[in-house]
């Protein structure tokens, strides 16, 4: 098991290196450079100066080596657009809000989605089932910013603020007040996806003889669900949850924008449009790292849930 995890971490580092290399060279082959990204046309001398200062006058391969060296020391460079702001600072300051929003959304959508899915499967063909399918279709087909806007119009204004976010370290009730609506808006998509998948997964499990055997043992419906259905039905869900967690934890541009959440999301968009090389690299590497960690966590979780997968790992297959 330790060997397995070590191997996985090795792969992780290689994958990350490939991603950052590809991103670095792709970024440099884009036509234009950071000095041209603003509306103003800068004088020749200023452009030369800026390039020298950012190290852009050197050949691309040399820039790459310098970047790698800095990265190994944990420095991801300073923003071109906002002098004095380093990429490290951006992540340190902006990530906590994105993380909180993302994790809350994942937890809420998992809890609601899984429960809805189970209820729908057990009430197949009845109104609860149709309601779940209805919610699933709505959640998948309507974009989250529409829900965000609807929440702002109908739910906010009284107890909940229309925009804004709870500062770190505020009281629980404050955090709830500030984060409830963005969390809800961000979890609609997840609720829809998970409930749909859970429904079909549970139906699949219910058709197995071991469920009939569990019933023949005299277990109640609740006991059958918690002891025999959940664990077997959840495996297919793990594979769809992991990549979604990565996406949502690193910031949702739209939701963060609408509720002015001080998250990471807007830096993805702004760094690319502003040709802010250090920030593009930093956000890409960060997103990839989280994504890869989630995938590895998924593999390990599989092994925890399903003894057959655990066995094949221990056997070294």
């Amino acid at each position, binding site marked *: 098991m330790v060997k397995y995890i070590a191997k996985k971490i090795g792969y992780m580092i290689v994958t990350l290196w490939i991603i950052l290399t590809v991103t670095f060279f792709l970024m440099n082959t884009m036509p234009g450079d950071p000095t041209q990204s603003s509306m103003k046309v800068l004088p020749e001398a200023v452009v030369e100066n800026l390039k020298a200062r950012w190290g852009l006058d050197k050949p691309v391969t040399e820039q790459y080596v310098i970047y790698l060296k800095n990265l190994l020391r944990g420095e991801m460079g300073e923003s071109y657009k906002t002098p004095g702001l380093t990429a490290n600072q951006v992540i340190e300051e902006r990530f906590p809000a994105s993380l909180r929003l993302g994790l809350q959304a994942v937890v809420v959508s998992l809890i609601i989605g899984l429960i809805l899915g189970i209820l729908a499967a057990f009430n197949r063909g009845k109104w609860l089932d149709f309601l779940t399918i209805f919610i699933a279709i709505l959640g998948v087909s309507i974009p989250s910013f529409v829900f965000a806007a609807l929440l702002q119009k109908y739910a906010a204004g009284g107890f909940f603020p229309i925009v804004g976010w709870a500062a770190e370290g505020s009281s629980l009730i404050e955090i709830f007040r500030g984060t409830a609506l963005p969390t809800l808006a961000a979890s609609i998509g997840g609720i829809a996806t998970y409930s749909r998948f859970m429904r079909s997964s549970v139906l699949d499990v219910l058709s197995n*003889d071991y469920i009939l*055997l569990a019933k023949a043992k*005299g277990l109640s419906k609740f006991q059958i669900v918690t002891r*025999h259905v959940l664990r*077997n039905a959840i495996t297919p869900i793990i594979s769809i949850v992991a990549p979604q967690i990565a996406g949502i934890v690193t910031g949702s541009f739209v939701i963060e924008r609408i509720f002015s959440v001080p998250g990471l999301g807007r830096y993805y968009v702004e760094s690319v449009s502003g040709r802010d090389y250090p920030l593009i690299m930093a956000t890409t590497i960060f997103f990839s790292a989280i994504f890869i960690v989630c995938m590895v966590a998924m593999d390990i979780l599989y092994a925890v849930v399903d003894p*057959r997968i655990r066995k094949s790992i221990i056997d070294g297959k």
Partner: protein
Amino acid sequence: MSEHLLEVKDLKVSFHTYAGEVQAVRGVTFHVDKGECMAIVGESGSGKTVTSKAVLGLIATPPGEVKKESQILFEGKNILDFTDKEWRDYRGKEAAMIFQDPMTSLNPTMKVGKQIMESIMLHNKVSKKEAREQAIELLRKVNIPNPEDRLNQYPYEFSGGMRQRVVIAIALACNPKLMIADEPTTALDVTIQAQIMKLLKEIQTKNDTAVVMITHDLGVVAGMADYITVMYAGCIVEQGTVDEIFKDPQHPYTDALLKAVPNLENENKSELQIIPGTPPDLISPPKGCGFATRCKYCMGICREKAPEYTDSSDTHKAACWLLHPMAKEVYGFENIKEVFENEK
């Protein structure tokens, strides 16, 4: 009249599908006493599995429906009137079931020991440790070597025959008075089949458990059962002791079934006989005898009117118009055996 352990009276079960109402079981009556083994024999779709599931209340409603006039008496109480709580106390403790396919009847993500202990702890007030001891004892009873280690393994680490032993151990967990085995050996290979049947027979005699054995293989039940019930198209066509059924079949379907079983002692190496045709569609069951379209001896009345049961002994009855006194008079035979033998 003495009370039977299990008495099924006029059991009718239907399934509502898009195509219409499938009358899977159309009035089945039988009883089993303590320590007896009753075999229900029939081909696929004859309603034998549905009958057995009804006895444990495992028929999903909807789409299934157990008709109102049906009665299933267990120790005199009609279990069809049970509340949810009564059902849960009855299942597993009073009556247990062994399923057909051991590859799918164990939970793949739960340790085998836990699956056995679950049943023990549900119906008896015992500690985890005691339940563990009992589970080890059960595994030993069903001849699984190293039960202490096996307890901590998952089903995928067991072979098919071993899994079926585990399923039997689960069924035995609370010493049920009634055990229903739904084709317990169909999914296993022949040598394992024999072992499992031997094991079931041992358990039945040792614990005085009543067994209802569902099978489509007459050969399997010959050594095990006391009584045989032959089902066809949702009805019982013949019922009797093993000897009566094997030596003196009264119904053409039973006779045909027996002729379809390979026999090593048969000297004149005759070909195995098949039963041509397929069972009737149970969405619109025939008004006459269900077997009429496939029966070699079919008469006019067979298609018009369902035959009544004719008793040939206290324990032996069959539903066939050939057994009617008038048929005997017209065709001029004493015993139906003559008819079956002449045909051969």
